[in-house]
């Protein structure tokens, strides 16, 4: 009897599911000028490996939407978010992009946070002619690759190569360094790209890279590398990688008595860096970032205040990038001639002097922002100095 019952249950489940499937596409999604609301798709990593990035972006986005809607929406129309979790999985990101564009009728989509997953959604965007915007996809070939410009893809953060170049300039000009050591994460294109650009810029302007060492993500023991490096003479260490390993490298380096300044990029931006390295090791550590809460710009101060009021914590760079991405899209929707993907794409591409909390920027012909970079200096584990470079 039990057996028949379970067969029956499976059948019921399947019919229910099939019935559900048949309902969904029969309601054509309302979009265009006559729609009462503006639907924006949110395709972020809310669970899985890089869930912290996705969740942080979403917090920023939700704050921005709340403010826009409280101020009366865009030309009288409210924004509604269609939020999906891509589980930090590329295939899922593609599927969800398809879902929001063909079934939910979004006018634009924001996310995913990481470059790979974002790239996976671009062909879907091109096919459906719906623009996609990422707040934090920093890989070099996101919006332009060997096949040319991705017409419907935009981002509002600078690229990895730009960070590598900026940190090389910072080492040469601000720290007066002549000799550098690179300890890179060879298992990510992020680490490799940063290392390459840092080295090119550093050597072009009179510096020398005296040693290059590599590790892979999830390593925890770096004493062998550091002992080897210690023998060389150098002024700075550049660590292109993420906070999990960088925190441990800094801790072990300081314990070995290496007190040269340590440089990094936005991969350092996490409270975990402090947990792993400890406050006393985090002196003379500098990293490039999109945003700093030390910024005295009135726009930033207001953002920090609003964010604290809503979430009761300090916003980080991903919160700020999510906030800017949403406002960037809203700004373009307001300027678009018509409410369709192509018009919004044209409006996004012609954005000039957009004032965001991660700096004001214009969109260049490659759909990248032209914006400044923040270099944050740490003292006893807390942000102590900031300098803005480049424009």
């Amino acid at each position, binding site marked *: 009897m039990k057996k028949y019952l379970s067969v029956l249950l499976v059948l019921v489940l*399947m019919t229910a599911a099939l019935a559900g*499937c048949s309902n969904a596409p029969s309601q054509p999604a309302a979009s265009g000028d006559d729609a009462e609301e503006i639907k924006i798709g949110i395709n972020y990593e809310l669970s899985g490996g890089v869930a912290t990035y996705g969740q942080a972006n979403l917090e920023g986005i939700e704050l921005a939407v709340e403010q826009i809607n409280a101020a009366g929406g865009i030309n009288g129309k409210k924004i509604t978010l269609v939020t999906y979790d891509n589980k930090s999985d*590329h295939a899922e990101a593609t599927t969800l992009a398809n879902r929001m564009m063909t079934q939910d009728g979004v006018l634009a989509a924001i996310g995913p946070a990481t470059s790979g997953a974002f*790239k*996976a959604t671009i062909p879907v965007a091109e096919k459906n002619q719906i623009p996609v915007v990422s707040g934090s996809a920093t890989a070099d070939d996101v919006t332009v690759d060997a096949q040319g410009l991705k017409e419907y893809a935009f981002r509002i953060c600078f690229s990895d190569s730009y960070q590598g170049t900026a940190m090389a300039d910072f080492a040469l000009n601000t720290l007066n360094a002549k000799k550098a050591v690179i300890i890179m994460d060879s298992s990510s294109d992020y680490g490799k790209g940063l290392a390459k650009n840092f080295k090119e810029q550093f050597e072009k302007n009179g510096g020398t890279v005296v040693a290059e060492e590599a590790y892979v993500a999830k390593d925890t023991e770096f004493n062998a590398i550091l002992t080897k490096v210690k023998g060389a003479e150098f002024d700075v260490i550049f660590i292109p990688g993420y906070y999990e390993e960088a925190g441990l490298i800094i801790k072990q380096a300081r314990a070995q008595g290496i007190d040269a300044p340590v440089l990094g990029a936005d991969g350092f931006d996490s409270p975990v860096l402090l947990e792993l390295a400890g406050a006393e090791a985090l002196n003379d550590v500098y990293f490039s970032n999109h945003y700093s809460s030390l910024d005295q710009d009135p726009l930033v101060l207001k953002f920090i205040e609003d964010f604290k009021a809503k979430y009761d914590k300090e916003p980080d760079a991903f919160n700020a990038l999510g906030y800017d991405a949403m406002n960037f899209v809203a700004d373009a929707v307001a300027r678009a001639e018509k409410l369709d993907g192509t018009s919004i794409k044209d409006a996004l591409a012609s954005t000039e002097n957009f004032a965001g909390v991660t700096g004001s920027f214009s969109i260049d012909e490659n759909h990248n922002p032209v914006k400044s970079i923040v270099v944050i200096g740490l003292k006893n584990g807390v942000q102590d100095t900031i300098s803005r470079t480049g424009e």
Partner: protein
Amino acid sequence: MMNRLFEKGRMKYIFALLVFAIGQLLVVTGYLNDYLFSTLTTLCINIILAVSLNLITGFTGQFSLGHAGFMSIGGYVCALISMRIPTVPGFLLGVLTGALAAAFVGFIVGLPTLRLKGDYLAIATLGMAEIIRIIFLNLKITNGAAGLNGIPQFVDWMWLSLFTFSSIILISNFIRSAHGRACVSIREDEIAAESIGIHATKYKVTAFVIGAFFAGIAGGLYASYFYFLRPTLFGFSRSIDILVIVVLGGIGSLSGSVIAAILLALISTYLQAFPELRMVFYAVALVVIMIVRPQGLMGSKELSLDLLKGFGRKRQRGGS
């Protein structure tokens, strides 16, 4: 005439044709939009993976955790070939070469490791999948950690259904052949099987190679549909995902694997609307199914088209 048409064993071809025709109709009428089609593609790829792993784990009894490795070989080979020859023949050449490459690696790896049993084999195959992943991570031609982008997309319903149904039918025919029965006998008792003259290693390697071949096909379809490949896609968790489908459907039941793949795809699709609770519900569903049906949805039984006849007979005899 009718009788001959519906002869036993021919039903599955008719059924496959029917499903293809319905699918084609939905595609042509535009009812199956891009989103539903991409869900369907994931489903078909999962079915091929689960059915081929079931041959190794369910029917031959060799616990393998390396299926993602074979899938990645098929995917990368297919991607590299179809990026250089971006035509339909190039895509087919890519899928088949990828599958053959996966089968070849399965052969090389299978010979030494299939001497191991149970947990030891699982660990060895897990290690193999990791090695394959690390190789792809460091090769120049596969573009390292950044992976391959812009793989031309050729997968449509025709190729998808063709590959899916031929995988299911070929594997089910293999299982019903003398070779397949030899594989099942090894699962039941390896020593007893050897005592009646079955060359255990030979059949284990055969099953392993065939399983790897079809995993390679799934990888090729994946590469061609989702435009991109990265080594991180083929980690340990993907092998586990495939194993979950096999165990859920019933170890040693091909139809069980197909049903479980469909069921999981439905659950996962439904829960997309609840991003925060999605993984919780998904996990709860798995736990509930495993408690209610510890042997899997189908156990080791097959759902065949003459099931109804079987039902009637059983009822008369036992009354349950």
